Protein backbone atom coordinates (compact mmCIF):
# COMPACT_ATOMS: atom_id res chain seq x y z
CA UNK A 1 0.00 0.00 0.00
CA UNK A 2 1.30 3.43 -0.92
CA UNK A 3 1.79 5.94 1.87
CA UNK A 4 -0.23 8.52 -0.07
CA UNK A 5 -3.11 7.62 -2.39
CA UNK A 6 -4.50 10.04 -4.95
CA UNK A 7 -6.88 9.33 -7.81
CA UNK A 8 -5.03 10.26 -11.02
CA UNK A 9 -8.22 11.19 -12.85
CA UNK A 10 -8.53 12.73 -15.35
CA UNK A 11 -11.25 14.95 -13.99
CA UNK A 12 -13.18 17.06 -16.49
CA UNK A 13 -15.55 19.81 -15.30
CA UNK A 14 -17.35 22.79 -16.86
CA UNK A 15 -16.20 26.31 -16.12
CA UNK A 16 -17.69 27.61 -12.88
CA UNK A 17 -17.98 24.20 -11.22
CA UNK A 18 -16.75 23.44 -7.72
CA UNK A 19 -13.87 20.97 -7.87
CA UNK A 20 -12.94 18.61 -5.07
CA UNK A 21 -9.55 16.90 -5.11
CA UNK A 22 -8.58 14.40 -2.43
CA UNK A 23 -5.76 12.35 -0.97
CA UNK A 24 -5.65 9.72 1.71
CA UNK A 25 -2.59 8.69 3.64
CA UNK A 26 -1.54 5.97 6.02
CA UNK A 27 1.23 7.54 8.14
CA UNK A 28 -0.30 9.17 11.20
CA UNK A 29 2.99 11.04 11.80
CA UNK A 30 2.38 13.36 8.84
CA UNK A 31 1.88 16.92 10.05
CA UNK A 32 2.64 19.12 7.07
CA UNK A 33 0.32 19.02 4.08
CA UNK A 34 0.71 20.74 0.75
CA UNK A 35 -0.96 21.03 -2.61
CA UNK A 36 1.17 21.65 -5.67
CA UNK A 37 -0.11 22.66 -9.09
CA UNK A 38 1.74 21.55 -12.20
CA UNK A 39 0.96 22.99 -15.60
CA UNK A 40 1.84 21.00 -18.68
CA UNK A 41 5.59 20.93 -19.39
CA UNK A 42 6.36 22.83 -16.18
CA UNK A 43 7.60 21.93 -12.71
CA UNK A 44 5.19 21.79 -9.76
CA UNK A 45 4.54 25.01 -7.81
CA UNK A 46 3.22 25.26 -4.28
CA UNK A 47 -0.44 26.22 -4.13
CA UNK A 48 -1.46 25.67 -0.50
CA UNK A 49 0.38 24.74 2.70
CA UNK A 50 -1.27 23.63 5.93
CA UNK A 51 -0.05 22.38 9.24
CA UNK A 52 -2.05 19.76 11.17
CA UNK A 53 -5.86 19.63 10.98
CA UNK A 54 -8.25 22.35 9.87
CA UNK A 55 -9.11 24.53 6.91
CA UNK A 56 -7.14 27.15 5.04
CA UNK A 57 -8.58 29.46 2.43
CA UNK A 58 -6.82 31.46 -0.28
CA UNK A 59 -9.09 33.13 -2.79
CA UNK A 60 -10.97 30.44 -4.70
CA UNK A 61 -8.95 27.66 -3.09
CA UNK A 62 -9.62 25.91 0.22
CA UNK A 63 -7.40 23.22 1.70
CA UNK A 64 -8.85 20.92 4.32
CA UNK A 65 -7.06 18.42 6.54
CA UNK A 66 -8.81 15.75 8.59
CA UNK A 67 -6.10 13.94 10.53
CA UNK A 68 -8.57 11.64 12.29
CA UNK A 69 -9.59 10.21 8.90
CA UNK A 70 -6.13 10.66 7.31
CA UNK A 71 -7.78 12.57 4.49
CA UNK A 72 -6.95 15.88 2.84
CA UNK A 73 -8.90 17.84 0.27
CA UNK A 74 -8.47 20.79 -2.04
CA UNK A 75 -11.59 22.65 -3.16
CA UNK A 76 -11.62 25.02 -6.10
CA UNK A 77 -14.61 27.34 -6.35
CA UNK A 78 -15.74 28.93 -9.61
CA UNK A 79 -13.22 26.89 -11.56
CA UNK A 80 -11.61 28.49 -14.60
CA UNK A 81 -9.96 27.05 -17.72
CA UNK A 82 -6.69 28.43 -16.32
CA UNK A 83 -7.06 25.96 -13.42
CA UNK A 84 -6.50 23.09 -15.86
CA UNK A 85 -3.39 21.37 -14.52
CA UNK A 86 -2.22 18.39 -12.52
CA UNK A 87 -2.67 18.79 -8.76
CA UNK A 88 -0.34 16.89 -6.48
CA UNK A 89 -0.77 16.46 -2.77
CA UNK A 90 2.38 16.23 -0.68
CA UNK A 91 3.00 15.64 2.99
CA UNK A 92 5.76 15.10 5.49
CA UNK A 93 6.35 14.07 9.08
CA UNK A 94 8.20 16.33 11.52
CA UNK A 95 11.76 17.02 10.50
CA UNK A 96 14.23 14.22 11.07
CA UNK A 97 17.95 14.83 11.24
CA UNK A 98 17.76 18.47 10.20
CA UNK A 99 16.32 17.78 6.77
CA UNK A 100 13.07 16.36 5.52
CA UNK A 101 11.45 14.77 2.53
CA UNK A 102 8.04 15.17 1.01
CA UNK A 103 5.86 12.21 0.07
CA UNK A 104 3.81 12.95 -3.04
CA UNK A 105 0.56 11.58 -4.34
CA UNK A 106 0.31 10.46 -7.95
CA UNK A 107 -1.36 13.73 -8.98
CA UNK A 108 -4.87 14.36 -10.35
CA UNK A 109 -5.18 15.77 -13.85
CA UNK A 110 -7.92 18.40 -14.00
CA UNK A 111 -9.43 19.86 -17.16
CA UNK A 112 -11.85 22.81 -16.91
CA UNK A 113 -13.66 23.38 -20.17
CA UNK A 114 -15.38 26.64 -21.18
Amino acid sequence: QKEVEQDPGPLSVPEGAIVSLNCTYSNSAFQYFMWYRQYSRKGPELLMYTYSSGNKEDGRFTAQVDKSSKYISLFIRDSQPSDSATYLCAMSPPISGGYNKLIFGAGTRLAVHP
Partner: protein
Amino acid sequence: DVKVTQSSRYLVKRTGEKVFLECVQDMDHENMFWYRQDPGLGLRLIYFSYDVKMKEKGDIPEGYSVSREKKERFSLILESASTNQTSMYLCASNPGYRLAGLYNEQFFGPGTRLTVL
Protein backbone atom coordinates in the same frame (compact mmCIF):
# COMPACT_ATOMS: atom_id res chain seq x y z
CA ASP B 1 12.31 34.91 -6.54
CA VAL B 2 13.68 31.40 -6.18
CA LYS B 3 14.98 30.01 -9.36
CA VAL B 4 15.82 26.37 -10.04
CA THR B 5 17.17 25.70 -13.50
CA GLN B 6 17.84 22.44 -15.26
CA SER B 7 20.39 22.10 -18.04
CA SER B 8 18.07 20.61 -20.68
CA ARG B 9 14.32 20.54 -21.28
CA TYR B 10 14.50 17.57 -23.65
CA LEU B 11 17.18 14.92 -24.03
CA VAL B 12 17.43 11.85 -26.24
CA LYS B 13 20.10 9.26 -25.46
CA ARG B 14 20.96 5.73 -26.51
CA THR B 15 20.97 2.66 -24.29
CA GLY B 16 24.28 2.31 -22.48
CA GLU B 17 25.25 5.97 -22.69
CA LYS B 18 26.32 7.89 -19.60
CA VAL B 19 23.91 10.75 -19.00
CA PHE B 20 24.40 13.88 -16.90
CA LEU B 21 21.48 16.01 -15.74
CA GLU B 22 22.43 19.30 -14.13
CA CYS B 23 20.46 21.41 -11.69
CA VAL B 24 21.33 24.84 -10.32
CA GLN B 25 19.54 26.88 -7.65
CA ASP B 26 20.27 30.52 -6.89
CA MET B 27 18.87 30.92 -3.36
CA ASP B 28 21.58 29.38 -1.19
CA HIS B 29 19.33 26.46 -0.30
CA GLU B 30 20.81 23.66 1.75
CA ASN B 31 18.70 20.79 0.45
CA MET B 32 18.43 19.60 -3.11
CA PHE B 33 16.41 16.71 -4.55
CA TRP B 34 16.11 14.67 -7.71
CA TYR B 35 12.78 13.06 -8.62
CA ARG B 36 11.45 11.18 -11.55
CA GLN B 37 7.81 11.59 -12.56
CA ASP B 38 5.90 8.89 -14.40
CA PRO B 39 2.17 8.73 -15.22
CA GLY B 40 0.19 7.14 -12.41
CA LEU B 41 3.21 6.95 -10.14
CA GLY B 42 3.66 10.59 -9.22
CA LEU B 43 7.00 11.93 -8.04
CA ARG B 44 9.46 9.38 -6.76
CA LEU B 45 12.58 10.49 -4.94
CA ILE B 46 15.85 9.25 -6.44
CA TYR B 47 18.45 11.03 -4.28
CA PHE B 48 18.72 14.09 -2.13
CA SER B 49 21.52 16.14 -0.68
CA TYR B 50 21.48 18.19 2.51
CA ASP B 51 24.95 19.70 2.18
CA VAL B 52 27.89 19.92 -0.18
CA LYS B 53 29.33 16.45 -0.85
CA MET B 54 26.55 14.86 1.25
CA LYS B 55 23.92 12.65 -0.30
CA GLU B 56 21.19 10.27 0.76
CA LYS B 57 19.40 7.60 -1.23
CA GLY B 58 15.75 8.14 -1.91
CA ASP B 59 13.19 5.51 -2.80
CA ILE B 60 14.54 4.48 -6.21
CA PRO B 61 18.33 5.07 -6.36
CA GLU B 62 19.20 2.00 -8.44
CA GLY B 63 20.89 2.90 -11.70
CA TYR B 64 21.57 6.49 -10.61
CA SER B 65 24.27 8.41 -8.82
CA VAL B 66 24.59 12.06 -7.80
CA SER B 67 27.21 14.68 -7.24
CA ARG B 68 27.14 17.89 -5.24
CA GLU B 69 30.50 19.63 -5.38
CA LYS B 70 29.09 23.13 -4.91
CA LYS B 71 26.13 24.22 -2.84
CA GLU B 72 24.16 25.58 -5.79
CA ARG B 73 24.65 22.62 -8.13
CA PHE B 74 23.29 19.07 -7.92
CA SER B 75 23.94 16.60 -10.71
CA LEU B 76 22.15 13.36 -11.49
CA ILE B 77 24.14 10.72 -13.35
CA LEU B 78 22.81 7.72 -15.21
CA GLU B 79 25.87 5.51 -15.42
CA SER B 80 24.50 3.36 -18.25
CA ALA B 81 21.14 4.56 -19.50
CA SER B 82 18.39 2.02 -20.04
CA THR B 83 15.00 2.31 -21.70
CA ASN B 84 13.20 2.03 -18.35
CA GLN B 85 14.87 5.29 -17.34
CA THR B 86 12.85 7.16 -19.93
CA SER B 87 10.98 9.66 -17.77
CA MET B 88 10.53 13.27 -16.66
CA TYR B 89 13.27 14.25 -14.21
CA LEU B 90 12.58 17.05 -11.76
CA CYS B 91 15.08 18.81 -9.55
CA ALA B 92 13.98 20.67 -6.42
CA SER B 93 15.52 22.59 -3.56
CA ASN B 94 14.45 23.91 -0.19
CA PRO B 95 16.08 26.19 2.34
CA GLY B 96 16.56 23.57 5.06
CA TYR B 97 15.89 23.71 8.76
CA ARG B 98 18.67 26.19 9.55
CA LEU B 99 17.21 28.82 7.23
CA ALA B 100 13.50 28.11 7.32
CA GLY B 101 12.79 26.06 10.41
CA LEU B 102 9.92 23.66 9.95
CA TYR B 103 8.69 25.24 6.71
CA ASN B 104 9.61 22.69 4.08
CA GLU B 105 8.27 23.90 0.75
CA GLN B 106 10.27 22.53 -2.15
CA PHE B 107 10.95 24.67 -5.22
CA PHE B 108 11.05 22.85 -8.52
CA GLY B 109 12.84 23.31 -11.79
CA PRO B 110 11.01 22.97 -15.14
CA GLY B 111 12.03 19.34 -15.61
CA THR B 112 14.04 17.39 -18.17
CA ARG B 113 12.18 14.94 -20.36
CA LEU B 114 14.66 12.14 -21.04
CA THR B 115 14.09 9.54 -23.73
CA VAL B 116 16.40 6.52 -23.88
CA LEU B 117 16.28 4.64 -27.17
